[in-house]
């Protein structure tokens, strides 16, 4: 499980509608926004980084008023434990 602290940048004047549309994404928690409404502070939760990337893309595709989603913080401490337990044979197939 990873949890982000992210900024969703939206087109001027669209923050209220974006807020409503974000309700369709339970993985996103709105925590606050700037005075202009253009920057929304959110958490995004995903199982792993790949899922996070595809989720962000889906959000952007679904809500055209979103200009950009930028991450300031990603917590993935559980992942480190998983990674340390791996050996290279777990996920690489050398071809030479």
């Amino acid at each position, binding site marked *: 499980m990873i949890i982000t602290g992210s900024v969703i940048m939206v087109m001027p004047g669209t923050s209220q509608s974006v807020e409503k549309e974000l309700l369709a994404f339970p993985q996103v928690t709105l925590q606050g926004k700037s005075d202009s409404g*253009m920057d929304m502070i959110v958490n995004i939760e995903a199982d792993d980084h790949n899922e996070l990337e595809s989720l962000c893309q889906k959000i952007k595709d679904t809500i055209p008023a979103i200009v950009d989603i930028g991450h*300031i913080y990603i*917590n*993935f401490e559980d992942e480190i434990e998983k990674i340390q337990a791996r050996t290279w044979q777990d*996920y690489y197939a050398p071809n030479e």
Partner: protein
Amino acid sequence: MNLTRREMIKLSAAGFAAAALNISLPGKSSGDDGIVVDKWIKGTCRFCGTGCGIYAGIRNGQLVGIRGNPKAATNFGFLCVKGFKGYVSMYHPDRLKYPMVRGEDDKFHRASWDDALNKVVNKFKELHQNFGKDSVAFYGSGQCMTEESYTFNKLWKGGFRSNMVEGNPRLCMASAVGGYITTFGADEPGGSYADIEKARTLFIVGSNMAECHPILFRRVARHKIQNPEKVNIIVCEPRLTPTARIADVWLPADPGTDLAVFHCMARELIKNNWTDSWYIENLCRFSTGAKVVDFKAYEQFLEQFTPEAVEKITRCPAANIKEAARLFGSQGPTMSLWTMGLNQRTRGVWANNLIHNLHLISGNICKEGADSFSITGQPNACGGVRETGSLCQLLPGTRSITDATARADVEKSWKIPPGAIDPKPGFHTMEMFAKLGAEDDTSKPLKAMLVSTTNPAQSLPNAPKYYKGMKDAFLVVLDIFPTRTTQLADVILPAAFIYEKGGVYGCSERRSQLTQKCVEPPGEAKADLWIAAQIAKRMGLEKLIPWNGDDAPTSYKMAWDDYRECVKLTEHTLYGITYDRLKQMEEGLQWPCPNENSPGTSRRYVRGYDPLMNMAAIVKVPSNALIYFYGDKQHEGKANVFLRPYKGAEEPPDKDYPFFLTTGRVIEQWHSGTMTMRVPEIARSKPNAYMEISPSDAKEYGIKEGDMVKITSRRGFNILPARVVKNSLPGILFVPWFDQTWDRMINRVTIDAFDAGSKQPEFKICAVKIERIGDPKDVADSYVISDVNAPFPIKI
């Protein structure tokens, strides 16, 4: 993870994001950092030259998370995927943990540090004795910490008295250095990243910022989005990259032809009176390179570069060039930003000169939002290699080794006898590798090389040409993972990752930032500085390099202080940038910074900003000069506007090899993939290299998406899948260079021709032919060399 902890992490994460944008989250605690991690330690990202500030989260002695530093002046808290995830590679099981020495069975065997270091030192001593001081070379990296580059440079030039010192910035930044020095008399840009948000027009040239410097691109894109009518973006780049897609004007010139575009823009600026006569009269000297001429001669020279004539040479539409010139000259302030597309060329220095020309004649320099700004590719190419002078022709402070005064100054600082430093430059990178070889090969004067934190067996252009030399010579490699280069080594010394040792990085905008040590290195891996100092000690040079203790932070601080002292009275002074200040300051400091009261310099050459304008001990500037290029060797405070003749690529396409091949990075991967390919998410998203081809070319050659193709140059070939993309002009192919798989190592194909001035190779352009060789094949193997004893793919 229980709910409370999860909620706390969410609040902390949101708090960091809010702090980055200076937004308060009413009624919410920003979370208690102590619950998420034991502590946060300040540092920088090591995956590109942007210099993003980070905080590393430590829990139970392990690095468990990275967050952006909201107070960092480079990134304001934002990070890209490499910044967040790249460090994960440091926990990969492939880490080199013990010194390894190649045995008589040609296999690596674990050795003690004493044995490995003694082997290195004894061999270096023997070679020095038998073949002279210049028989052993150092090849470093723009990823070494500044203290490390400085120490190796001091050991070689001051200790061994040899200038056989190079680094991989020769492959990425040398033309920018050459451009700044020939135009302004001094290296590195005058302005800062902060000019991005002050500029009205941004001219992005030969840079796919969106993928290679994503956080800087975020600043550019955000500025444009917030001011869509006021801010203009011009992108000059043969592919319609993600960067070019935000452009108001795209200048799609064929690779290597853009000198003509820049001259044409200059012609347009003059014809339409978008020039600044005060700048032209007071700050410009017009030069052919051989002689000084007047403005009229420059104007006449430019006459050949009409938009229509240039369109014929470059395929770049004349109307686009005219519009770009209009925006550049009349919608300023204008800032140019560029990277490898301009530098990695046989005419890289000239291309840099011509961008500077545009800024000088239009008065778009030394003002808010106006600068001619080269972005560096690696995190410490500027701070570590350029500024410490760790190239064959330089001394610390980017001073020339041929300058007797500079040599005397450095000899005094290093407390070595006058005349100890050899005035003759050593070999530049390509010459070094060409002249590296066996002891019994009289044509190869270099017999040994110590390579630190870089992978030349994959990153050199036309790499296979140089394998025999690397294999035959005594090759010592410091690194954290097995690479193509360790496969050719005799001794491998396991090094520490940035967060396992700490040290200073200096990014593109002359900003030094300190990373503090966060965790211990794995196994017996050691900080690179310790390795350098131990070699020095064992070679009897402990007095020169006394920082050989086991406590990394103490040793790095000692090296930094020695470096500060050495460059105290230079144009690059960072004497005021102490470890104590760097620990306290969230955003680091920009040089020139001559004393501990100096706030650093955001804009060079301008009175009121640059403290050197009033420091006669370092540079002489007339008291009435507001702007003065004090690096000018003629002591007139002027910059050179060059009348460089047009010249295209070294190897343009022809009937046998009809395509341009250009190479580069992608957003997820870094350089030769050594680290990033070991981050599972990154490896999954970009598991292999591929060849991008335009739909019309694909059709002509019967190539469909995913088909396997053979791409061949006069030097070698690759076999890799095709990607049919609409983003490049027909005739131009692109292959990223991160893949370690032999079939897809594109530097088997690239050309090793180099710029006569900067000696930087033309990675970006060579001629190739292609053929479809089969249906799609799954090659998404995320290949990395995991075993130091894995056989090299070809017999050498």
